[in-house]
């Protein structure tokens, strides 16, 4: 997916660049994955040694600050995350996270909107395949448009946690408009087997509609673009993803979340 250098001019690199993948859902507890960036080696390398187990990670909601605790977590990769049960996501609040380890420091602030309810999730037959369904999420755009959304999906048969659904980003621009988003599986590039985007009949999953800030939306939109097209021979791009992490890379998403459990019929 990524064009990378192995000869010629060496890119300018820093020794340690903190990487944050963090989220807090409305009605949920925060989670922070804290790693350091890899300086690529053409010979390849290990991913696990960039996992930071002993960092100091804090979150505040404007009223109090909590130091988060690190623990093993098998639903994401690398399998380690920082968490706390002392902070609960509430709409209309600003959340600030900090992450420190050695000389590394990163922080981010993110606002949480009001969740937008999911009106329905529908399935239609795919004329080309009798085991797959075209799945569509429906919602009504709120009054305070523009509103920015992205979808995540958690497959009940998978050990992986909730992951961004392919092509799940949407900007709603007209208040009260009926908006649809196709629901696809999440694409991860370490899977060996071929990826099937559509949901299969019988598949159970939790589909979540996250309303986020424009900054966060732009990150996930660029992420989608990188996932979809960076390997495409005709359209491949080499733009870095934007970030709302000060001093590092990645994204902190304060998500106003509506979820629905589905079994594809």
């Amino acid at each position, binding site marked *: *997916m*990524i*064009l*990378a*250098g192995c*000869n*010629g*001019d060496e*890119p*300018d690199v820093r020794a340690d*660049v903190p*990487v944050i*993948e963090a989220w807090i859902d409305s009605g949920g507890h925060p989670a922070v994955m804290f790693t350091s*960036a*890899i300086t*690529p080696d053409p010979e*390849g*390398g*290990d*991913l696990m040694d*960039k996992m930071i187990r002993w960092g100091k990670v804090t979150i505040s909601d404007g009223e109090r600050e909590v130091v988060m605790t690190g623990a093993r977590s098998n639903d994401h990769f*690398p399998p380690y995350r920082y968490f706390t049960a002392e902070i609960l996501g509430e709409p209309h609040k600003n959340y600030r996270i900090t992450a420190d380890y050695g000389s590394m420091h990163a922080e981010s602030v993110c606002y949480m909107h009001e969740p937008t309810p999911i009106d329905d999730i529908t399935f239609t037959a*795919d004329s080309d395949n009798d085991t*797959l369904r*075209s799945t*569509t999420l429906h919602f009504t755009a709120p009054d305070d448009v523009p509103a920015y959304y992205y979808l995540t999906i958690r497959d009940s048969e998978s050990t992986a946690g909730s*992951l*961004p659904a*392919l092509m799940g980003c949407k*900007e709603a621009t007209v208040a009260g408009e*009926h908006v*649809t*988003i*196709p629901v*696809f599986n999440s*694409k*991860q*590039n*370490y899977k060996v087997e*071929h*990826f099937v*985007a*559509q949901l299969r009949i019988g598949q159970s999953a939790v589909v979540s509609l996250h309303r986020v800030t424009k900054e966060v939306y732009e990150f996930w*939109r660029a*992420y989608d*673009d*990188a*996932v979809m097209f960076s*390997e*495409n*021979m*005709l*359209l491949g791009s*080499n*733009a*870095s*993803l934007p970030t709302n992490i000060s001093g590092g*890379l*990645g*994204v902190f998403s304060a998500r106003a979340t509506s979820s629905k459990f589905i079994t594809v019929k």
Partner: protein
Amino acid sequence: MGVALRLPLLLLLLPGAAYGAQPDSTVTQLSEVVVEANTGPAARITSGGNVKVSAESLRYGSRLMGEADLLVALKRVGGVSSVGDYGSGLVIQGNDPSQVIYLVDGAPVFFPYRFGGVFSTFNTSHFNSVNVMRYGRLAATPSRLGAVVNIAPRLDYFNPLSGSVNVGLLASTLTVRTGVKKRFALSASGRISYIDALYGRFLNNDVNANHYNFGDINLSAGWRIDSLNYLTAGYFFNSDKLHSGNNNYAMNTRLRWRNNVASLRWTHRGRRPAEITAYYSEFGSRLNVGFPQFDVTGRAGIASIGATGRIRLNGARGFKPGFTVGGEAAGYSITPLWAELHGEVRQPSAPARRTRPYEARVFADAEFMPSDVLTFSAGLSVSTFSFRYYAVDPRFSAELRAGDNCWNIGAGRYSQYLHLIGFSEIGLASNFWLGSGSDVTPQRSWDFSAGWSRPLMGGDLFLTASLYYKIVSSQSEYSGQVLDIIDADYDAAGHIFTADGYNTGLDIGIQKRFGRLTGSASYSFGRAMRHLPGSSERFHSLTDAGHQFKADAEFGINSHWSVSASFVYSSGRVYTPTRYLYIIANRLIAEYGARNSGRMPDYQRLDLSGTYRFRTGGRIPLNHTVNISLINAYGHRNVESQFFAIDGETMRYKLYRVSSLYRFLPSVSYSIDF
């Protein structure tokens, strides 16, 4: 002794005549003679550093994938390259393919490139020659920053019926020419490919399933009104379809493009030679990205209707100048990329933002010949684009011949009002044209060049050396993402940034032109650097060619057999390297480093070819040619792109390299000339 080719002498003298070489009424048709000579290198460097490719020589030389292609032959010339094996566009002196203008029958062709680098859109059997003017371009040359590629059709006024049939593994071609009463000539060619049938599996890998096919038509007609006046008409159409299916994403990418070009030209060859051309040229592309539940269709296009004319008022004599004056005018209809959504995604699409700019230009060149050995020219081009932008571009060139040595210098300012931008770094048809406007200003260039050439050994060897330096500004690049095109407020022009900089380089070459063994060798170095306005940080342009060594040779074993080899070793293309990798949502993500600061591994390729020719008599004498070729004979894996991904078995990250399309690719073709 070279290969004995039985050719009607008339064909050599009057091959129908490229423009400016129409047959003279006093010519007498001779009977057939035997020419004992090898055809020599198809692409010849002239004393001024420019290039001429003879289609006739190509037809008897080596072939790539069974096709003798004019533009592929140009790539063998020092200092001419392309951005990778997937694209066909030529990079000359650091100018990108959109800055090189291709004129067919005098009409511009906006996108004369095919996927895969094997074919150009120009059907060799239809044309007579290609002339590439890259040094000392005078004021009369069109508004482009780079070289001018003139492609002249082959018309045969004197032969009632001639033509050729070529059957290859990739495509087949039919050309028919006829002359009527020595006053009218008509030439028609058609070509159709069937690449998928035999080479489909070479275009596919574990992830991508690719399909590609194309077709083209050429029609040319000439009317020799009298011995001084000629009227010619031309028509050209091509259609290309590329399909890339991605198994990992259930995604299909379809790219279609076409050119539609018609021209009408009057040529006067009297005491004051003159030429007027009227043309219509259109290029359109359609990019479709399909998903299971919806698809996105992006469209872009450009159409131009225009006329150009020039007249040579008098010849130069001493310090009394010879003047050539002229002008051109063109109106454009330009539709930058816009997209429509179909399927279950309900979202309004951004409307097409069509513009209708126009361009007008007048020019004058004065040539001085103060002595038999010295010639110099000075010219001025004054142009406007929709009366919003203006340019006054002076040009100067001089040539000194001292004995066998020929020295040239040139300087000039050039302006270009059209930009070609888009997602593809290798210049595929998904890129689109845009006129200068509020978002992007005209491209400018100050060019300086110097060259030297001389023949050796009675002309058997020909040495050339040249230098160039160009100061360029407003070089446009696209910064948008693919998904931007589905935004309701998408405006392609809003995703452009421009850069300034310079191109510099040198070309050194030697050609062996005669005998059983002919060939050429060249070394070129090109550097193309850019910087954003107001920034001192420089980066390489994608057209930065680096070092290139090229050699090709053809040996005529006997009157039937000839073999040839072509070798290139060059710097890999520049690209933007990854500075960091990191993981988001279980996926490896790249943070990119300085723009275009990395280079792919060096490129190398050896192509081999063997040709067997024979002739059959009878009522219709026929020349038969069977060609066998092997592309990338030692199977070097040239890297076209590379990326990091997580190895699913080891959970380590790993570098994956995508090789060129061409590895041990054999081909065979059979052609008949009648």
